[in-house]
């Protein structure tokens, strides 16, 4: 196993191509759930969780059902990629929600509303699609999924920390609330642009 390659993928997904700040995926929860640190952490954990299982199962579905080189019937079904990924992710998240509600009520409490909210989040679909576009293996897809989730959580938690402090700051009336949050998001994206000069591997 090529650990160096996996490290490159992980750093790439967390910092260099951060899902929120560089690819601009999953902006809705980024603005919507970043009002308080505790809910941001809850949301982040749920996203890491869902992205990991979404990477795993979408990779399996793509390779064994859609890709003409490897699937069972040898025909090109790659045009079904988006619809089958959404189907798989939504179904799986619903299933996982039921399982943890039964087996781990405390985890269910912690993830709360965020699990169903992110079933069809574009960042989750994005990580599944990117895995295929980059021709990742199963292990690489998993690492990319986890790392993308961590990157999302990082951006969300940083934003929540800033917004909690912004509540106490003297912000002009017209900019209070979401407008100043968007400005902050822009500034953070510019800051993360610095990581694009990072050369790994």
């Amino acid at each position, binding site marked *: 196993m090529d650990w160096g390659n996996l490290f490159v993928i992980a750093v790439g997904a967390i910092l260099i191509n951060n899902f929120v700040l560089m690819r601009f995926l999953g902006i809705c929860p980024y603005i919507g759930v970043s009002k308080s640190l505790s809910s941001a952490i809850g949301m982040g954990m749920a996203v890491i969780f869902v992205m990991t299982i979404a990477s795993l199962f979408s990779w399996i579905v793509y390779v064994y059902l859609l890709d003409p080189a490897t699937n069972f*019937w040898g025909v090109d*079904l790659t045009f*079904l990629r988006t619809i*089958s990924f959404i189907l798989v992710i939504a179904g799986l998240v619903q299933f996982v929600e039921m399982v943890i*509600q039964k087996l781990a009520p405390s985890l269910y409490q912690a993830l709360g*509303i965020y699990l169903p*909210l992110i079933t069809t989040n574009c960042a989750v679909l994005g990580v599944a699609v990117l895995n295929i576009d980059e021709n990742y293996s199963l292990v690489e897809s998993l690492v990319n999924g986890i790392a993308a989730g961590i990157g999302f959580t990082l951006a969300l938690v940083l934003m929540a920390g800033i917004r909690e402090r912004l509540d106490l700051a003297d912000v002009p009336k017209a900019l209070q609330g979401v407008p100043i949050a968007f400005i902050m998001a822009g500034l953070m994206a510019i800051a993360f642009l610095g990581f694009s000069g990072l050369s790994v591997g």
Partner: protein
Amino acid sequence: MDPSLIGAIASIGGLGLLLGGGLAYASRVFYVKVDPRIEEVDEALPGANCGACGQAGCRQMAVQVVGGELTGADCPVASSDVVARVAEIMGGVAGAAVDMVAIVRCQGSPDKCPDRFEYSGFQTCTGGDKIGHGHKACDWGCLGFGECVAACPFDAMVMGADRLPKVMDENCTGCGKCVEACPRDIMHLIPRNAPVYLACMNINKTKKVQEVCDIGCIGCGRCANKKATPSGMVSMNKETNLPVFDYSYDDEPVVAVDVCPTDSLVDKKAGRRPIWHIDPTMCNGTGECAKICPVKKCITETDGGKYVIDPEKCISCGWCEPVCPTKAISPIQVNAIRKVG
């Protein structure tokens, strides 16, 4: 037929069947019993998952409502219909057992409690409160910028022309947002059926109060006197020099309102109380009523040895009714009197 078409139908159809069947099966295997009221409350709530209640979403709020931690009124988005629907699901009591309503504990309009300086800073109560104990002559008085009115989510408050906020009881849900908003603790919640409350917060006595406000409580204690409130509903707090009302008493301290020399007590049922009338055919002239009546020259003896109540002087206290040996005294509605007069 095109093999890719068959493959597509088989793949997506198979996936759909697998997931659908799996979910249906899982929902049975992993079924968790939940209080059915949680589902009902969740449906009644706006469902925006905005988080304004402090919970993560509407479902979490529903769980808290059923657990008795929150009430429908804690949802700032909910209309009064939604609050009523939630209360109905919860069996009439949405968390709090007592139906509360907000009151304004100040009557110091500018003509009664003047300003001691002209304030031109931030036009908010919090701002005004920080500058030299506020611009009102009274350190406890309402500053009148209406932060409570702005905080009210139910349109139950208006700012009067006298720079004092008014609570409209029929719209007030007792949510307490105005209490949180007021920097001087002037807004307060009392039971909705409470008859009388004190509308003053000034802890000083006599002269110091009179210097700053014509309608402030001077701490004389006449309302707490056994002669005014025999039930003991009103007592004086020695530290604040203000009377305290114990609303667990089933008493209507009308006489306390009447004896207050500064009118700082507010009768919430003023104008809606019946006044009393003695039936001259049943009166036997013992005069028990005249002895107990707290108002001078209200009950007087006529030339025929009977007693009559002066409807102009009657304060609706009802003290005379139980002492009458012949049960000659009965209430007549105020509006009936108005028609006669």
